[in-house]
C-alpha cells in the first residue's frame, strides 16, 4: 500500500507545518506517489536543484523564502507543474501565487482525494499522468499540424510554440490553454468552458485561475492576441 509504484511521478512537498507535511506525505505515498519533503523555501530550492521532481507541491506561506518567491525562482529554470496550497483565499494570495507561475492551487483544508485529483490533472497536461496521451491527442485534432495565426506558430506534434520564428517556453497549463484557443480562433471561450477543459474543474470553481493564466499567456505571446469579452470570457484574435 505504501510502496511507491515504479516510475510514478515524484513529488516535492514544501510545507512548514510538520503535521501537514508528514500526513500529506503519508497520504500521497498511499496513492503511490514517491514524496520528498522540505520544511522551508530555501531547503525546497536546494532539494529541487539536487533532484528535480515531476511536480512541486508548495505552501504559500513558508519561512526564509515564501512560496510565491520560490515559485518564481523555480519558474526561471523549469516549466514543471506547480501546485500551490494556501490557507488564505483572499484574491491577493491566490493571484500572486498564480502570477508567480503556479498551474493551480488548492485551498486548505483539503481532502487527500481532492489533492490527488488536482495532482493528476496537472500531471496529465505535462504528459506524465497515466491517461496523458489519449485526451490530449483527441483535443488536438488531426495528426501532424502546425497551427499558424499571423506570426504565431503552434506545433501540436512537437508541442512547441514560436512567435515570429522565436521559440517561446510555455508551461504545460499555458500550452494547454493556448491549444484551446488555437483550436477555434475567433470563437468566444467562456471562463467556465476553459475551467472544465484545461483544469478539469466542475461547476462553481474560481475563474481567477483562468484570468491569471490568460494574462501570463498574453505576456509570453503578445498582449493583443487574446481579447477579453467582458462578462463572458476570452477569444483568440483571428488576425491582427
Amino acid at each position, binding site marked *: 500500500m505504501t510502496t511507491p509504484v515504479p516510475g510514478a511521478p515524484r513529488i516535492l512537498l514544501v510545507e512548514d507545518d510538520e503535521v501537514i507535511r508528514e500526513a500529506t506525505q503519508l497520504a500521497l505515498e498511499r496513492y503511490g506517489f514517491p514524496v520528498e519533503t522540505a520544511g522551508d523555501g530555501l531547503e525546497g530550492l536546494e532539494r529541487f536543484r539536487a533532484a528535480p521532481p515531476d511536480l512541486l507541491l508548495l505552501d504559500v506561506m513558508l519561512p526564509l523564502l515564501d512560496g510565491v518567491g520560490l515559485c518564481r525562482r523555480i519558474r526561471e529554470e523549469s516549466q514543471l507543474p506547480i501546485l500551490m496550497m494556501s490557507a488564505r483565499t483572499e484574491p491577493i494570495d491566490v493571484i500572486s501565487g498564480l502570477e508567480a507561475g503556479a498551474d493551480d492551487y488548492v485551498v486548505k483544508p483539503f481532502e*487527500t482525494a481532492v489533492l490527488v485529483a488536482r495532482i493528476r490533472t496537472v500531471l496529465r497536461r505535462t504528459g506524465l499522468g497515466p491517461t496523458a496521451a489519449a485526451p490530449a491527442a483527441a483535443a488536438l485534432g488531426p495528426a501532424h499540424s502546425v497551427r499558424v495565426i499571423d506570426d504565431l506558430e503552434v506545433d501540436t506534434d512537437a508541442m512547441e510554440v514560436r512567435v515570429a520564428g522565436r521559440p517561446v517556453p510555455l508551461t504545460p497549463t499555458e500550452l494547454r490553454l493556448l491549444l484551446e484557443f488555437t483550436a477555434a480562433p475567433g470563437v468566444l471561450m467562456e471562463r467556465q468552458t476553459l475551467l472544465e477543459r484545461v483544469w478539469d474543474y466542475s461547476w462553481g470553481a474560481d475563474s481567477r485561475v483562468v484570468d491569471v493564466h490568460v494574462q501570463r499567456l498574453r505576456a509570453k505571446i503578445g498582449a493583443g492576441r487574446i481579447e477579453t469579452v467582458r462578462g463572458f470570457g476570452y477569444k483568440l484574435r483571428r488576425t491582427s
Partner: protein
Amino acid sequence: MTLRRQIAAVIALVSCLVALTVGILVHQASVRQHTEQARKSATAALDTVLTGYDATGELVTGWHAAADDPAVPPELRRLAERGRQGSMLGPGPRGTAMWAAAGANGRVLSVRMDYAEDERAIADLDRAVQVSAALSVLVTVLAGVLAADRISSRLRTAARTARTIARGDLDARIGPLGRARDEVAELAAAVDSMSAVLRSKLASEQRFTADVAHELRTPLTGLLTASELLPPGRPTELVRNRVRALCGLTEDLLEVSRLDARAETPELADLPLGPLLARIVAATGTEVELRVDTDAVVTTDPRRLDRIVANLVANAQRHGRPPLLVRVEGATVTVRDHGPGYPEEVLRDGPQRFRTGARERGHGHGLGLTIAQGHAEAVGIDLRLANHPGGGAYARLVIPGPGDRPTATAAR
C-alpha cells in the same frame, strides 16, 4: 408633528397674542385720549355758556348750546335737573356726540360736540394697528419658519446619515453642517465620531473572525489529512465526520467575514435561469425536485446564486423535511420544504448568526441563512423567508433581469 411645524406654530401663536394685546392697549389708549379731549372741550364750552348765561341771560351761539334740549341724554338731564354739572357720550343728531350739561335757574343748559369724527379716527387707527400687526405676525412667522427650517433640515440630514449608518454603511458621515457651532453641529460631530468608533471596532471584529478562521485552517488541514490515514472503522468515521463539520464551520465563518468586509465584487453576467438552477441543484447532491415553469434571462453572479440556493437547500435538508422543491417562475426562484418551517425569530429579525432555534429544528450553526442573505444583498437579489401556508419553510428569490440595475451593496 415635525420640529419645524412646532416652532412655526409656537411663533405664530405668540406673535398673534402680542399683536392682540398691543392692539387692545393702543385702542383703549386712543379711545381714552379722544374721550378726555372731547370731554375737556365740552366742559370748557359749557363753562363759557354758563358764564355768558349768568351775565346776560342769553345763550352763546355755537357748540350747539341750548336750553332744555330734548336730545340731551336722560341720565345727563337728570343730573343737571338736580343742579349739578356733567358730561357724557350719547347719541346726537349726527352720530355720537359728547354732551355736557348743567342746571341753571331750573333749566338745563347743554352743549354738544360731535364725536363721530373721533370715532372714525379711532377706527382708522385700529385698522392701521390691525394691518401692521398682521404684517408683523406674518414676517415673524416666516422668519421663524426659516430658522426652524434650517435647524430641522440639518437635523434631517443628521437623521438620514444616522439611518444610512444603521443600514450598515459605516463610511457615511454627517460632516460640518454649515458654519453654525450650535447644538445641532455638536450632535452631528458626536454621531460622526460614534460611527467612526463603530467602524473601527467592527473592522477589528471582522479581522479577528477572518484571522481565527484562517489560523484554524492550518491545524485543520493536518487534522483532516491525518484522519484520512486512520485505519477504517466506526471510531475513524466519527472522527472524520466531526473534522468535516469543523472544516465546514470554518469555511462558513470565512465566507461570512468576507461578506461582512464586502471583499469581493460580484461578476455579473446575463444567463438563462433554468439551466443555471439545474446545475446548482445537481451540485447540492441533495434529493431536490426542480420545476421550471417559465424560464427567464437574469443578470447575476452565478457563483453567488449557487451559494444562495445551495445554502437554502442545505438548510431545508438539515432543518426541514422532504420533499424539497425548487421552482423557477420567470426571474423568481422559490425553495420549499415540508418541515416545521422557519422559526419565529428568523421570520421576525431575519437570519442571525448561530441562532437556529436548534432545539426544535435539529442542529446546525445558523450561518447558512446569513450567508444566503449576504450574497443576495451583494447582487441585488430580493430574498424573502416565509412559512408556506401549506406548511414548511418557503424562501423566495427575485433576481434582477438584464434591464434592472442591481442595487449591489458590495459593488463599491
